[in-house]
């Protein structure tokens, strides 16, 4: 029995020969205990690769030095419902890791506001946001932005052959600009394996997504340079 368990462990890691796979699948299908073991492996993977310690969002309105945040309230074409929504988005960041999502922000917003319009807007925003993040981490082509982004003025070189990466020293990342703002009025960021995902609203209805190895400060500098 331990041999079959070890085989499941190896198969979970993609390390079992094709010949053994079909037999194994048949055995698992008939055995609830083995199915449970498989789900346990998945939970262990979730535990190892997800940072469950929640970190607070950065209140961009406190950072008066950065022009990223200038007039963000004034430039948003907000409806009355959206105003309600925006004042309530003091949310913890969520952590996405290996396709696992532990977002509870949609629920928090929905329960916090009574306006049906605002609730719908919140739900849609969070859903699009979740979709967007899933694309960032799972679809390599998604971050190959064709936008003519130039960051030479702040020292970043672009290398199209290398997955449209920008780099400077130890910092390597990809960047993409969205015309929709996902309802964001603050920077939100997540850790995905060893990379960071930053979503930074530019104040003109656009949001930039930066995915890679770089600090929050660098991400903010980049955003700043894009609107100057």
């Amino acid at each position: 029995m331990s041999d079959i368990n070890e085989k499941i462990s190896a198969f979970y890691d993609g390390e079992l020969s094709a010949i053994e796979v079909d037999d194994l699948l048949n055995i698992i299908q008939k055995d609830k205990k083995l199915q449970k073991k498989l789900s346990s492996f998945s939970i262990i993977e979730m535990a190892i690769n997800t940072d469950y310690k929640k970190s607070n969002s950065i209140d961009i309105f406190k950072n008066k030095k950065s022009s990223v945040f200038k007039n963000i309230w004034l430039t948003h074409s907000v409806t009355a419902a959206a105003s309600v929504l925006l004042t309530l988005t003091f949310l913890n960041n969520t952590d996405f890791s290996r396709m696992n999502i532990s977002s509870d922000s949609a629920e928090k917003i929905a329960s916090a506001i009574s306006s049906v319009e605002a609730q719908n807007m919140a739900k849609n925003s969070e859903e699009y946001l979740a979709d967007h993040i899933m694309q960032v981490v799972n679809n390599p082509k998604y971050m190959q932005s064709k936008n003519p982004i130039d960051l030479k003025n702040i020292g970043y070189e672009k290398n199209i052959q290398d997955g449209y990466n920008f780099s400077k020293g130890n910092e390597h990342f990809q960047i993409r600009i969205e015309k929709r703002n996902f309802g964001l009025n603050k920077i939100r960021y997540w850790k995905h394996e060893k990379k960071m995902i930053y979503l930074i609203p530019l104040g003109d209805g656009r949001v930039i997504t930066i995915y890679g190895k770089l600090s929050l400060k660098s991400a903010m500098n980049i955003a700043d340079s894009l609107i100057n």
Partner: protein
Amino acid sequence: MKKTSNDIDSELIKKAKEGNIGAFNFLMNKYYPRVYASLFSFTKSKEDSEDLAQQTFIKVWEQIQTFRGDSAFFTWVYRIAINLAKNFVSSSSYKKQRINTSIEHSDIEISSFADLESLVIHDQHMIKIKDFVSTLPESLKTAFTLREAEGKSYEEISIITNTPIGTVRSRIFRARESIIEYINTELLNNE
């Protein structure tokens, strides 16, 4: 050549499309906890999350032929789950729909394990699992961490640790078994 999680999924999806319920079952058990966790964060209800997770995998089974592999499998599953959750929020007839659909799809059995579900919705339990890994014997911890956190193949781990591949496989398995034992004795018994 090293197989990624997506490569493994692709092989299973191909088999599932050919009607191999075992392959589908493997995918379902692999992703059920993540789907459940995502749905719970949305609904904050264990019962609703379980219903929606089951409904999700019924839909996945129904629509697996349409999955083209443009995105990762879980991305696709996740979208189905979130769309169902969204409809659930706005529809009071959800439960009636679920019962009807379940009856029509008796060819697949949706497994759910209530005790495991309770783990993924408690962050503190997940943190304890992660902490427990650091208490594993060094040889198990090294092999397991290289695999699970660093994504190394057994061959790569074998080279790094100067250990035969069979030993690597055994150590990773033993590490998992130790963690499961810890879960069963320390976390699930303390519910």
